[in-house]
């Protein structure tokens, strides 16, 4: 069980004079839940965006299951098996819960524009709809199927965003602060949910999170970055007792 799903080698992201991510390397093995933590502005989301193709890396190499995906477009990255959620929820606001998840099936279409318009792809369309309903039932969102996505309570919206990402059938799921704005109970449920989908959907999970309780509870390994550089890596216990991490979170070690 030591197959590497995602490998980041010497990733550097530079915006003008600012180095947001500096020579950062990491790897995630199949079935792991790996967290990336660090103070605000440490470069966590930038690293995510480089992996998912939103940004072109200044330097470095990103490999998904032995395939080089450095510099691919976001839709190409998704097609190869990385799905993500966003720090600020980005659901399709004109669509229902059902349509949001259904839209995520579009990437596996085989029908062209013409045959889709003239309904020559009935079987495929039917399968997409059935898969969507099956997925919604599996994650207990079926009751909300026909609600507008943006009218859901906040916690459900976060959940729906994860489900929508699952509908692209990813091998690796990237969650960008999924617990942001959630109360402790919702956060607990989210932790359970992430563990559940990992086993049910045979996933590998890469998560950015600020809720330390959640991170410590669900992560197999944790990477810590500060100012774009890795300062620690290890199991939750190791990280909790790591002096560099404590310094980063409590403020500069020099003054101690």
């Amino acid at each position, binding site marked *: 069980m030591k197959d590497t799903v995602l490998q980041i080698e010497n990733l550097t992201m530079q915006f003008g004079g600012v180095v947001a991510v500096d020579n950062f390397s990491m790897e995630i093995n199949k079935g792991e839940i790996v967290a990336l933590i660090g103070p605000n502005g440490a470069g966590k989301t930038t690293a995510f965006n480089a992996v998912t193709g939103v940004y072109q890396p200044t330097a470095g190499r990103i490999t998904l299951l032995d395939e080089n995906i450095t510099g691919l477009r976001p*839709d190409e990255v998704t097609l190869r098996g990385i799905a993500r959620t*966003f720090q600020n929820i*980005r*659901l399709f606001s004109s669509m229902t819960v059902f349509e949001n998840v259904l839209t995520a099936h579009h990437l596996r279409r085989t029908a062209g524009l013409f045959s*889709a318009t003239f309904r020559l792809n009935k079987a495929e369309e039917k399968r*997409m709809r059935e898969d969507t309903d099956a997925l919604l039932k599996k994650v207990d969102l079926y009751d909300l199927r026909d609600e507008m996505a*943006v009218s859901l309570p906040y916690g459900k919206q976060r959940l729906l965003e994860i489900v929508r990402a699952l509908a692209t059938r990813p091998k690796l799921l990237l969650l960008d602060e999924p617990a942001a704005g959630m109360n402790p109970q919702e956060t607990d449920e989210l932790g359970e949910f992430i563990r559940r989908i990992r086993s049910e959907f045979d996933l590998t999970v890469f998560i950015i999170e600020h809720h330390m309780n959640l991170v410590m509870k669900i992560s197999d390994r944790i990477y810590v970055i500060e100012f774009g550089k890795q300062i620690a890596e290890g199991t939750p216990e190791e990280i909790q007792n790591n002096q560099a991490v404590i310094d980063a979170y409590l403020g500069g070690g020099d003054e101690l």
Partner: protein
Amino acid sequence: MKKKLDLPHLITVLIIIAVYAGVFVMEQTMAPTSMIFTVLKKGATYALVAVSMNLLNGFTGIFSLGQAGFMLIGAYVFSIFTIPVDQRPIVYQYYNGGLIQFTMPFFLAMILGGLVAALFAFLIGLPVLRLKSDYLAIATLGFAEIIRTFFQWDKLGPITNGSNMLRLFPTFNDFNIRNANGEVVVYLSTLVPMIISGICIAIILLLINSTYGRAMRAIKDDEIAAEAMGIHLASHKQMAFCVSSFFAGVGGAMLAMYQTTVQAKSFTTAMTYEILLIVVIGGLGSVTGSVLASFLFVAASEWWLRFLDQKQYIGGHELPLMRNGFRLVVFSFIIMIVVLFFRQGIMGTKELPDLFRRKKTTEGGSAK
């Protein structure tokens, strides 16, 4: 896409059938010069162009202002290929009868007009669709202006007749069925354009409700999220742009048939704005709204407000303000009120079947 029609859709289908049947009966019984037929013909034409613009602006979120340009291409291609060969010396009198010496059936020429418009859209789309919002609007607007000038270019005269009028091609009146003496037996000059327009709009609706239509709506809602769901932005925008332009081209051909003459200088930016206005009044993201607004818009500008342009008397006193051009003042005023107080348009994002559904309490319309 259930096999069985649910009640709201059934009512919608019945309404549409009733409208077509009503138009057919009216055409046989009323004087063909009645203003209502003018409104229906031009309204059907504008409805198609408005829906095609809505596909871009309302459903895909691409703010394009090139519609008049694509209509021009459709109108020109249609008329160039349908003028009867024996009439060409008259039409192309300054260009020795023109270069093209064959004609096509009107139906094929109409589709060709759409295809040429779509081809132009494809080529323009390659650079232009990389731009966002305002920049894209300016670029497409510029394109429409260039096309307008280009088609009037003297060197293209043997094909486009330069800045002269194209005429003597088939018009809506040719849809009427005549007997051997040339008397009209069955009037179809309003029904056929409405059917052509209806079929085209139905195709656009099918597209909107297909998996590609959902992808386009996703792009409108959130480009970043759409891309993260594996939707290739450039190719889907290009599809929407080409399909929209195809139907704008067909609409242009219909406009040519309605007007009976075509001249490049009449496809102005103002025409695009008229269409945009119809789309906004009807509701960005509602096909039903675009159709309703087209007929209302045409009826108001061509018919209901006409009396404002004439001198009116009440008890021998001439009313002030009523003179040529006052109609447009009132018209602009109405539009300002609509835009200020009814931002969602007539329909918002609702379609006709939605009106027959029981209101859901949980639905919260977004106030964008």
